[in-house]
């Protein structure tokens, strides 16, 4: 089962790389924000996955809860600022 989890972890990491490509290349600044959101969602999943592999889900779930909440605050702040600044920023 641990091998299976490791394969899942590797696949999700590769997918993070795809989103990272969007963060680097994305034509507008909102593409970058979207890519960052995708990465953070995957980070939340990966945390629970790592916790399952270590058989310490109780500890890792707390962090991924915190992650999810902080991610909301950060993303809302970024969106608020970008709303004012506009699409002029690349």
């Amino acid at each position, binding site marked *: 089962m641990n091998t299976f989890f490791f394969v899942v972890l590797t696949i999700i990491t590769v997918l993070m790389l795809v989103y990272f490509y969007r963060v680097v290349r994305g034509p507008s600044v909102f593409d970058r924000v979207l890519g960052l959101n995708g990465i953070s969602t995957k980070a939340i999943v990966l945390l629970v996955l790592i916790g399952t592999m270590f058989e310490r889900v*109780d500890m890792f*779930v707390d962090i991924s*809860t915190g992650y999810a909440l902080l991610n909301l605050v950060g993303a809302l702040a970024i969106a608020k600022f970008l709303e004012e600044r506009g699409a002029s920023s690349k």
Partner: protein
Amino acid sequence: MRIFAGFALFVLWLVLSASYNILHMATGAVVASMVVWLSPTGAPHVRRFSWLAALMYVPWLIGRILKSGFHVSRLILDPALPIAPELVRHKTKLSSDGELVVLGNSITLTPGTITVEVAPGELIVHALDVASCEELKSGLFDDRVGRLFSVKGDKK
């Protein structure tokens, strides 16, 4: 309603802390009541909320999401990429905050449609293709969310 919110927060604390001695549980009770006490009163203007409809709504929404998820996956995996994105102005009878939140969240959560702007009585929705657009326009979501807040006959 406030007592219920406090109780929900306390249950959340119990689930997350998972240590059931008197000290931790008392701390949880104090913190939950503090949060309820500090948060503003006069919760979102909700006419009536039917728990039975909510229980029905969640599985329906999950089924809906799965269905349109497969639909959007087919769109993306198709080599020809047959998408027709468009912005739709979606008139709705729902106007209170709670209804709009549930409606907008459900629309965004369903693959193929995303809420762009929200105003009372009108949503601007971005739809990925014609099928998602038609589905939205059929007023299914409004009907369901309306039933959640027991508003009859909101079908457009």
